[in-house]
């Protein structure tokens, strides 16, 4: 019969004690984000391993999932007080999370550690609280199909809205299923409002807000809607606007069916994979006539913040600092084909790739602009604007009415 020897018991107890003490010695940080599946396999884990080596006693557990799942997980975690110590954030979520008191204010942490605030591209603040840093930014320039442009006789790429309309008209050949521009306004993912509509406003240094409140009835937004309506009336927008998604927008561009689109720089590699022969160039979003100021560059970002409920905020701040540091940030954004959250970081792809190099120049001469960041229920605001824009494009209302109705809908949310 098997008998447990006293020596075996002692060994087991010693092993348990060793394990327990080492577990107690390590601080386990949980980091929820959607980045890992979008990066090359194992690359984020490798960065975490480097962090753990540089910070003995801190272990990082990555909780990764697709974007939508992560968003839901974070919403529920914020409500139940079980949010991970460090969280990947989208600017569109921070207002809600802040309303739930789910995010820690990083101002005191920055002050206590002597963090150089000038090194970061942006600090997202809500009610004076620093709740998010953009770690990586994906800018949205205009992609131009150079072969279609050449065939249409567009020799100078457009830099103003009027030039854009002219170029789009030239590139449109309905009989060949070829259009000048593509506009995705699906209500399933209303991000087209941010990326493909409001980007026109921000590009000209204008704003959809005034004194922290929506100003959709102002000239910038009404002019933008009037411009988009003129493109639609001219028949230069690829059909199916109301149900078109971003993915379909890219597919149409890849298949030479549209001459120009506003899209994320993150899609450059995807476009090349889908159609290696596609000859395209990047330009900034065209501006209103006679505008010479700095151009706002629409962007989406991978943000980072710390849970207010975290018991390890000091360690969490170390991880945030690490990811925002010049070298690590450059490494991360190089993997993601994004632009850095640290202004001193220089991703390697900007020197090795012409398209990215050009986009980096556009990025450096402009400024990041996305006014949906930090707004309450940003997706809901986009949906409301989307519906009014769709009504306008369907001929049910004028740009002024669309702007007024959207303003009414937005004000109810503020």
């Amino acid at each position, binding site marked *: 019969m098997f008998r447990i020897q006293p020596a075996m018991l002692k060994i087991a107890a010693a092993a348990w004690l060793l394990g327990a003490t080492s577990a107690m010695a390590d601080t386990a940080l949980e980091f929820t984000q959607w980045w890992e599946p979008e990066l090359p396999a194992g690359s984020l884990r490798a960065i975490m391993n480097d962090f753990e080596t540089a910070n003995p006693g801190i272990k990082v557990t990555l909780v990764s999932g697709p974007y939508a799942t992560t968003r839901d997980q974070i919403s529920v975690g914020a409500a139940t007080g079980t949010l991970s110590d460090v969280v990947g954030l989208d600017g569109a979520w921070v207002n809600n999370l802040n309303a739930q008191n789910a995010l820690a204010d990083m101002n005191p942490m920055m002050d206590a550690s002597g963090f150089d605030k000038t090194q970061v591209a942006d600090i997202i603040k809500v009610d004076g609280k620093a709740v998010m840093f953009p770690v990586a930014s994906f800018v949205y320039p205009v992609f131009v199909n150079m072969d279609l442009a050449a065939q249409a006789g567009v020799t100078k790429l457009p830099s103003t809205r009027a030039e854009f309309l002219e170029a789009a008209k030239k590139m449109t050949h309905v009989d060949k299923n070829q259009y000048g521009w593509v506009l995705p306004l699906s209500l399933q993912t209303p991000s087209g409002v941010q990326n493909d509509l409001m980007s026109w406003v921000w590009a000209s240094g204008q704003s959809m807000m005034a004194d922290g409140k929506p100003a959709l009835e102002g000239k910038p937004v009404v002019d933008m809607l009037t411009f988009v309506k003129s493109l639609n009336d001219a028949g230069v927008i690829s059909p199916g606007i109301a*149900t078109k998604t971003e993915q379909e927008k890219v597919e149409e561009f890849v298949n030479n069916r549209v001459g120009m689109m506003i899209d994320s720089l993150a899609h450059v590699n995807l476009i090349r994979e889908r159609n290696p022969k596609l000859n395209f160039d990047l330009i900034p979003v065209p501006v209103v006539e006679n505008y010479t100021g700095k151009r706002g560059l629409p962007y989406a970002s991978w943000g980072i913040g710390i849970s207010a409920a975290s018991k390890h905020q000091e360690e969490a701040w170390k991880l945030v600092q690490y990811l925002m540091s010049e070298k690590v940030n450059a490494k991360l954004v190089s993997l993601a084909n994004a632009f850095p959250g640290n202004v001193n970081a220089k991703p390697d792809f900007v020197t090795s790739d012409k398209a990215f190099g050009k986009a980096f120049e556009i990025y450096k001469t402009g400024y990041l602009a996305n006014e949906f960041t930090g707004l309450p229920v940003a997706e809901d605001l986009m949906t409301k604007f989307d519906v009014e824009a769709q009504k306008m494009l*369907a001929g049910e209302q004028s740009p002024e009415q669309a702007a007024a109705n959207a303003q009414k809908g937005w004000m109810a949310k503020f």
Partner: protein
Amino acid sequence: MTRQKRSHHRLKRAVAPYLYLSPSLLIIGLLMLLPMVTVIGYSFQNSAVLRRDPSFAGLKHYQAIFADPVFWASLWHTLYFTCMSVVFHMTIGMVFALMLNSDRINPTLRNILRVLYILPWLFTAVIIAVIWRLLLEPNGVVNSVLMQMGIIGSKVEWFSSPETALHAVTFANIWAGYPLFMVSLLAGLQGIPKDFYEAADIDGAKAYQKLIFITIPQLMPIIISISLLDFIWTMQVFPLIWITTGGGPIYSTEVLSTYTYKLAFSSYNLSQASASAVVILLISLGLTLFYIRYQKAR
């Protein structure tokens, strides 16, 4: 046996059925009843889920959704989508079932048709949505064929036009759902005694008379049962509409399920979303009660 033993034995006999049922009751309670009661509770709270200390809201959220014109539009679209789907599922299912049950069709052809007709049932809602999006997109196959046949003069934006979107998603759902009726009715048809038709033949009944006076009455229990189930299921359809139109353009294909989803995950108004979900629950419950009564009456 002593009196004490007898009463103990009686108690054991009385408790035994509940013990046998307890695993099922526990699972139903945990997986169905608890979420249902929780959602009903949320519908009476302010900032449900989002706050740890939500306050009591009374009927506020119900009043808010009943005052929202989009809710009523969604209800109307849901009814249209559901009624049209059920009617056409039944009609197409019946036609195909009669065809597959007919001796006039070559058995080999019948077997091929049986496989072809059941195909839509094999696809998931996401695949069906993607197929129809590709087929009905402005540059898709449907427009191309219709234009070549001279039926339409220019490209129709089936899913993107407020005039056609609801009909287009309903059509896609009809295509996806008729096999349920077809299979059920085919089984029913094969169970109708041949004697009825032989007697009708002797009486000189015509084909349509046999259909009206023998086939349909014999199939009526199946038709009613499946129609009620289809009504309940179709009313809750979400992925097909969400992927094809997202409830748009404008609100032209907004149904109760997409309306509720947007309240929950776009507006983060989980209290109103719960109230809307409770309305769907009540409608479904009414239909379910009707179904149960019908089943009991049989």
